[in-house]
């Protein structure tokens, strides 16, 4: 599986993402700088976490209009799988590739801890390494992770099976206590309609080593390698 990671000024999780992708696929991803106008032909494009352009205006807003994003949108429209994690999720919603928007956390605090994450479906390129309904422990680290869309949009994406992950409590239940940031209907990650683009807030790339934070994130990368190799 050949992959590319997009790097903006202010991106800070690109190395963790590269390590996770290389560990799973055996191939080091290409790093693509935001000023590059062409993304090489790869099996997967990743927009990693961080604070691109200092979160100026709105998180992800400036990055969504950078030169490299034109190439990303073109490739995405032709079916190249794209995954946005944390700030990458914010960028993909700002481009309109994914529905909704990520607002300031309801509690107004930066949240950095493990959360319960339920896999809504294993039927995708990205989530095939997990079981339907599997509950994972994955870290989040964000200030703007409060997923919002109007009720009509939420109903539509739920009906289309576009919800990839939801926040859950210790018992695996979708409760308010299990929702770290106020996200609508506990949504932590969504697909586009074709399920070729995925965005989510938690960091599976930081849950691949038993020495630091567990290994629940591995399933995502192993599943991607199986689907895209």
């Amino acid at each position, binding site marked *: 599986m050949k992959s590319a990671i997009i790097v903006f000024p202010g991106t800070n999780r690109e190395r963790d993402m590269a390590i996770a992708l290389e560990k799973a696929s055996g191939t080091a991803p290409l790093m693509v700088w935001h000023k590059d106008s062409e993304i090489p032909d790869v099996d997967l494009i990743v927009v990693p976490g961080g604070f691109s352009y200092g979160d100026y205006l709105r998180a992800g*807003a400036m990055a969504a*209009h950078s030169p490299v994003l034109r190439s990303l949108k073109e490739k995405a429209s032709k079916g190249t799988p794209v995954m946005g994690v944390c700030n990458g999720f914010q960028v993909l919603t700002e481009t309109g590739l994914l529905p909704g928007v990520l*607002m300031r956390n309801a509690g*107004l605090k930066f949240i950095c801890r493990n959360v319960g994450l339920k896999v809504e479906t294993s039927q995708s390129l990205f989530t095939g390494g997990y079981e339907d309904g599997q509950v994972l422990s994955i870290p989040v680290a964000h200030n703007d992770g*409060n997923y*919002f869309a*109007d009720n009509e949009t939420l109903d539509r994406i739920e009906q289309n099976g576009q919800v990839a992950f939801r926040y859950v409590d210790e018992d695996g239940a979708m409760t308010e206590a299990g929702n770290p940031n*106020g996200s609508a209907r506990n949504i932590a990650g969504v697909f586009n309609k074709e399920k070729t683009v995925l965005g989510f807030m938690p960091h599976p790339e930081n849950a691949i080593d038993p020495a630091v934070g567990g290994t629940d994130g591995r399933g995502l990368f192993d599943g991607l390698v199986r689907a895209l190799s």
Partner: protein
Amino acid sequence: MKATVHVTLKNGVLDPQGKAIEHALGALGFGGVNQVRQGKFLELDLGETDAEKARAQVTDMCEKLLANTVIENYTVEIEG
């Protein structure tokens, strides 16, 4: 010419920052504040000299970048 843009959250969109400001005002003894909504104010200095063209240009800027129309409304004012 000068353009001013106000970007505000749509009705029904929760504004946790506005809420925090509302509470802080209450804590300072300012009673009777029923609600606070926080937004953005932008000033643009434009080369364009035609007011209608300037308005169209700034509206396009709002649609593409300055506002996220999923959650935000905007208003544009043009001054000669």
